[in-house]
């Protein structure tokens, strides 16, 4: 063993070889004889150092050995032939022996792409295409490729095309890989790749014409490049998007000509996408054509124009933005472009433009397989597709009035947008840099095996190659990931940068040094983003950002992001207005600004809530300080009843005057309602949770107010009340299933204290109840809470409050079946607990009668229900969509369940519940209802309850029927978790569920078979 060897290995390791020992062995391979100089180490300019400069020295070395073996094996035969008179070997050896561009290029290609190395090994005579690579014109590339397929030598035309294509690719890669700044040359590389694709299509057309023979002469065919091909910004490996245009040749019949053109196009596509022994170019994708894959492959210019005029969707115009002639009949292509290009710029004024754009945006953001989400370079929020899409969208919106924006190339368009002031200069520059970086990563990843992929690799060697290729030397695999994530973070803020920040610049009038979005452009942009009243939005923005206050400064930074959140919701205008009001009320308070700035999700939650729910916005505008719940940790968990009661009582106790005391308690309610609404809107509470939470607030408020009323009446009577009071919750309140718009259904019970006279007790009880109702009915800070006592004995004509004894004697003598039925949901909610217990003892035998119901009583309930259906529905209401009283509505379901309860609760204890859903489940468990029927009932009841809640949240006031206004329906649908834009489905959805429930009601309640 020679003493120099260990240091040699170390040297190689230092140079960047991962497997230095193996590298040393390979360097000694016979194939490299004459390339390695013993003095290399002394001068640091020999082959090992040059290999060390490549992205993957090990790969470069191995490939080099393979290449040289191949060259030497070929040499004798080649020397005899005329093909390479100067002799390949000597030239190649000379190039590799000396430091210089030729060697660097060759090694760079070998060290970056196994696919291109394979090509060189198979075609060593192509080495000069690497070493002598230069930027070619499109025409030169077309000549090379068409020449190759016209004289394919010993190959088939398909194979000749593939070989010639890769040969060109060698040159492009050589220049790309050895440039000083790969991101700087990115546009040139992408352009060269697009030119090469153009040449390949032209050559494929030559093949197709040859295959088709004379028939091909009946038509003129033009190939229009779309997507990245059209934009002259192609990847190394990507689908090539095209559209075909054809016209009959002079004198030819149109039908024959179009059939020939279709055949020609099919052959052309096959020539590119067929896999042969020499590989494949890329799939040619013609799916962007009118009618997509359903449509004919070729159309005439007139047919294209007719389609775009009548049928095309917004995304198709967006695609047309990139249309460019790439192959075939140039004159025809020009006619086509002249016909359709003007239409692109009218797209923004078409109906549904805004809706389409929003749907497209969502598609861009959602279309990522979850497993790949964190490795994607192309799809997903902030991916390359998102950048391209966003730039194109701005082109469509502003390009109508400004034709400087009409470039098909992403980076050129971005630059033009910055020059015109449509995007901030700094933002455009940052985005430009990120885009180039991400594209470069994509290029290098694809180049390695010439595979179409947009995923970051995960294996260290792959990452290392990627990092070294970008010039990182120490810990390249870590550095490249860090840099990537940093850039991806930048890009993820693209909507803020591109769409919203320029709007702020337009209104805030800050720096005057650069071009700004003009007022008209700002309005167009806001409208395109979904604001219905752009002028109003601009006024709000001006108000929010003008001035030098700290608030204005913070809002100027925040608003670009917040505008995006507003625009994601159903009512962006409402959201912005509410934000302005809240902000004007709270703007100078310290905690509010800190909340917005520092709490992370607080500002986001606020923006979404305000633009989503009028109900929440109204609550907040009345009591801006409630915004604090957004920043509290665990701030969205509803407070339990005791907690609320304590707060309300404490708040009430601080006021002497009963009215002000109850107002104070109601402020607590308002605060809590906001909390519940936000929790509901953000999906943290389900229907049951909302029902419980709203029930708790209602109960606490009634309890606290009863307390105030009792004290007030007691005071006026000298300190002591002659009776104790009880409030019994009925209906949804009793069932703990309260909705946002629900009134509180109650009954009032009292019991004279020992020794008090009955008349006095009754008089005082009535006074308390009336005071309670007065206090709760007055105008207050919170939404109105109606107290409805109509379910009491004798209904509206009966006394408002009765003593327990009076209830007892009434029920003993008069009780009607419907009154017993109403008692099914009776539950004491406030007042004397012991009295509550005894009240229940009194009513239990009524609501759960010992032997169930007799046929006469069942008939009576059915008749009453039938009459209610005919009479109770308000005059203008639609029986198909009225939540409560409509067919298959809440009442239908509840009565069906209640009938089962009254008939069977005596024998099935689980039926003794005030909750509709629990009773329904108990009925199924006891086999009293068919499970499928019960499911229909449950589904309809749940949907009606959720839809009613969502409607109140959206509109801010009680709603009785499925909204028929589509905009409202859309907002309601979104709150219910439906996709945006599905408002039209809402009524259909409701009616389907209600129809099924109604069929069950007919069978199980009315007993129709």
């Amino acid at each position, binding site marked *: 063993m020679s003493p120099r060897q260990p240091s040699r290995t170390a040297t190689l390791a230092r140079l960047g070889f991962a497997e230095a020992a193996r590298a040393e062995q390979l360097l000694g391979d016979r194939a490299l004889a004459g390339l390695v100089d013993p003095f290399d180490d002394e001068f640091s300019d020999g082959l090992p150092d040059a290999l060390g400069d490549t992205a993957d020295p090990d790969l470069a070395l191995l490939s080099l050995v393979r290449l040289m073996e191949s060259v030497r094996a070929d040499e004798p035969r080649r020397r005899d032939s005329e093909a390479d008179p100067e002799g390949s070997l000597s030239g190649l050896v000379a190039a590799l022996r000396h430091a210089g561009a030729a060697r660097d290029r060759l090694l760079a290609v070998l060290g970056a792409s196994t696919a291109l190395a394979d090509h060189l090994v198979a075609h060593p005579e192509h080495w000069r295409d690497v070493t002598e690579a230069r930027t070619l014109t499109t025409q030169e590339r077309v000549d090379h490729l068409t020449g190759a397929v016209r004289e394919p030598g010993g190959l088939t035309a398909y194979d000749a095309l593939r070989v010639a294509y890769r040969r060109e690719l060698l040159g492009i890669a050589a220049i790309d890989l050895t440039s000083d700044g790969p991101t700087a040359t990115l546009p040139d590389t992408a352009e060269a790749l697009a030119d090469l694709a153009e040449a390949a299509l032209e050559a494929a057309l030559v093949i197709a014409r040859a295959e088709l023979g004379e028939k091909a002469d009946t038509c003129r065919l033009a190939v229009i490049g779309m997507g990245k091909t059209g934009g002259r910004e192609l990847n190394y490996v990507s689908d090539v998007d095209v559209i075909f245009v054809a016209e009959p040749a002079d004198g030819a019949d149109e039908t024959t000509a179009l059939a020939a053109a279709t055949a020609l196009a099919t052959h052309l596509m096959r020539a590119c996408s067929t896999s042969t022994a020499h590989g494949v170019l890329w799939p040619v994708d013609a799916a962007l054509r009118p009618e997509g894959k*359903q449509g004919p492959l070729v159309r005439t210019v007139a047919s294209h*124009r*007719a389609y775009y*005029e*009548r049928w095309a969707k917004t995304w198709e115009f967006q695609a047309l933005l990139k249309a460019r002639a790439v192959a075939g009949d140039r004159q025809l292509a020009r006619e086509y472009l002249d016909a359709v290009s003007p239409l692109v710029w009218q797209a923004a004024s078409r*109906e*549904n433009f805004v809706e389409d754009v929003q749907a497209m945006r969502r598609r861009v953001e959602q279309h990522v397989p979850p497993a790949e989400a964190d490795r994607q370079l192309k799809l997903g929020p902030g991916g390359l597709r998102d950048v391209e899409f966003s730039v194109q969208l701005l082109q469509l919106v502003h390009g109508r009035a400004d034709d400087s924006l009409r470039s098909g190339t992403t980076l050129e368009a971005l630059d033009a947008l910055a020059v015109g002031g449509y995007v901030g200069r700094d933002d455009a520059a940052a985005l430009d840099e990120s885009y180039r970086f991400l594209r470069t990563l994509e290029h290098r990843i694809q180049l390695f095996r010439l595979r179409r992929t947009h995923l970051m690799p995960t294996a260290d060697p792959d990452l290392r190659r990627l990092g070294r290729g970008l010039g990182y030397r120490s810990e390249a695999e870590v550095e490249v990931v860090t840099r990537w994530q940093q850039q991806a973070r930048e890009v993820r803020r693209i909507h803020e940068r591109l769409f919203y920040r320029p709007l702020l610049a337009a209104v805030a009038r800050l720096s005057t040094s650069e071009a700004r979005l003009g007022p008209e452009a700002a309005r167009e942009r806001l409208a395109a983003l979904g604001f219905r009243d752009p002028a109003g939005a601009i006024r709000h923005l001006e108000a929010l950002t003008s001035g030098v206050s700290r608030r204005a400064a913070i809002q100027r930074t925040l608003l670009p992001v917040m505008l995006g959140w507003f625009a994601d919701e159903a009512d962006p205008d409402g959201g912005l207005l509410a934000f302005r009001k809240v902000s004007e009320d709270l703007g100078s308070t310290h905690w509010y600004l800190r909340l917005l700035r520092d709490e992370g999700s607080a500002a986001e939650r606020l923006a979404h809530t305000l633009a989503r729910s009028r109900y929440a916005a109204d609550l907040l505008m009345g009591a801006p300080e409630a915004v604090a719940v957004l920043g509290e940790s665990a701030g969205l968990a509803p407070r339990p009843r005791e907690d609320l009661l304590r707060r309300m009582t404490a708040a009430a106790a601080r006021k002497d005057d009963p009215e002000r005391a109850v107002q104070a308690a109601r402020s607590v309610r308002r605060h809590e309602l906001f909390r519940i609404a936000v929790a509901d809107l953000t999906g943290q509470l389900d229907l049951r949770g909302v029902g419980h939470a709203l029930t708790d607030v209602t109960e606490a408020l009634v309890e606290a107010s009863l307390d105030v009323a009792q004290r007030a009446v007691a005071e006026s009577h000298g300190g002591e009340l002659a009776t104790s009071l009880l409030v019994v919750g009925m209906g949804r309140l009793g069932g703990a299933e309260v909705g946002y718009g629900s009134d509180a259904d109650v009954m009032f019970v009292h019991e004279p204290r020992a020794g008090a006279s009955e008349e006095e007790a009754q008089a005082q009880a009535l006074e308390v109840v009336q005071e309670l109702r007065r206090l709760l009915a007055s105008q207050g800070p919170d939404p109105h809470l109606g107290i409805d006592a109509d379910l009491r004995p004798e209904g509206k004509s009966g006394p408002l409050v009765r003593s327990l004894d009076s209830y007892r004697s009434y029920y003993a003598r008069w009780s009607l079946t419907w009154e017993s039925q109403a008692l099914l949901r009776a539950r004491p909610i406030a007042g004397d607990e012991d009295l509550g217990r005894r009240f229940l003892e009194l009513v239990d035998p009524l609501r759960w009668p010992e032997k169930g119901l007799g046929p006469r009583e069942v008939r009576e309930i059915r008749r009453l229900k039938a009459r209610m259906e005919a009479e109770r529905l308000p005059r*203008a209401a*639609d029986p*198909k969509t009225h939540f409560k009283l409509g067919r298959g509505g809440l009442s239908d379901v509840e009565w069906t369940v209640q009938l089962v309860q009254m008939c069977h609760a005596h024998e099935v204890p689980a039926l003794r519940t005030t909750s509709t859903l629990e009773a329904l489940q108990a009925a199924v468990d006891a086999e009293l209802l068919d499970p499928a029927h019960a499911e229909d009932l449950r589904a309809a009841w749940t949907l009606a309850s959720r839809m009613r809640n969502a409607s109140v949240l959206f509109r801010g006031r009680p709603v009785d029927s499925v909204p*028929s*206004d*589509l*905009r409202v329906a859309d907002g309601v649908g979104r709150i219910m978790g439906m996709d945006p834009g599905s408002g*039209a489905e809402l*009524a*259909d959805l409701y*009616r*389907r569920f209600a*129809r099924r429930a109604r*069929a069950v009601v007919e069978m199980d309640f009315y007993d129709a078979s």
Partner: protein
Amino acid sequence: MDRQQEFVLRTIEERDIRFVRLWFTDVLGTLKSVAVAPAELEGAFAEGIGFDGSAIEGFARVYEADMLAKPDPATFQVLPWRGESPGTARMFCDIALPDGTPAKADPRHVLQRALGKAADLGFTFYTHPEIEFFLLEQGFRPGERPEPVDNAGYFDHVPHGTGHDFRRAAITMLESMGISVEFSHHEGAPGQNEIDLRYADALSTADNIMTFRTVIKEVALEQGIFASFMPKPFAEFPGSGMHTHMSLFDGESNAFYEAGAPYQLSKVGRQFIAGLLRHGAEITAVTNQWVNSYKRLWGGGEAPAHLTWGHNNRSAMVRVPMYKPAKGQSSRVELRTLDSACNPYLAFAVILAAGLKGIEEDYELPAETEDDVWGLTGSERRAMGIEPLPATLHEAIAVMERSELVADTLGEHVFDFFLRNKRAEWDDYRGEITPFELKRYLPGL
């Protein structure tokens, strides 16, 4: 303004059109027309013409009545029967709500939705109806027997017959309106005629049927006679059906065709028929929507009253017609229940939905029926598993009420309106004292 619209406006100018009729169809299949002056047309293209939807059967209730009719310029036609100059023209309309979204009550939209669903599966739906109708003398009075214009039979050529002139005039007029007519002959009953519309996609066909019915009535009036599409005007003669041939195309190729399969009928074709049979009873209220329709269905002869299929079996509900060698594109199935008085938009929509359901859920096609179903006894039919179609509108309603398929296809709004309207029709009918009762009961009881 696009070129189609410009073309329409220019034509109106050049041909001196004084009125443009905007056509649409109510839920029951009656053609509705709003006339506008040419000056209003530009606005109609841009925003639609407002009208009161509550005035149209099944469209809307009073408080949500505002609707817009948006003319489809591609359907522009000068109406040939109003004299040459000054003329009248027509366009079909899509119905929209004030915010521009399609109205759920618009039958055209119902069909468009069903076709959209087929397109999602990669299919286009083609239909070819054979429309039968009666030509009668004018001056019919309730209580009297209507008078046919002639007394000829099947394929008879009636020299100088009224029907002959009539057909020539009608065909000329239809062709001048861009509707291709494939074949016409004299049907099996006095005064009965049949005209076949050429194969086209289902939406165009439905539009054409609406135009066709109007043209036929118009030509009849011009000739001093009267045309009726009533399914069964004479107890003793066959009724007027609308046998409809249909096929699904998958791109350029006929999805019903498979070389070498029995009757050259592909799996898709078999599943489609299986869907028609399994859901046949549910959709009958739509395909045969009148009280009178069931008198044709159950009138014997060639009328199909049972859920069967067969090859060249003229009593089967679904017939697989004779296969023409080397014409793979012509593979099709013929549904024989439809009558000429259906709403073609809704009928095609539910038929398509039933067939697609068979494809999606991979229904098994039951055995072919080779016998004449009417020749079998009730027990034989039971033994063979042959189910009857609903015998009355009342039965048809009851089956449809429970159909998720029909509800889904029509949409809840049309579904609900249709059922309510049909229940009311049945109630009205039940309240009638018929000549049958008077003849049979009055003297004897």
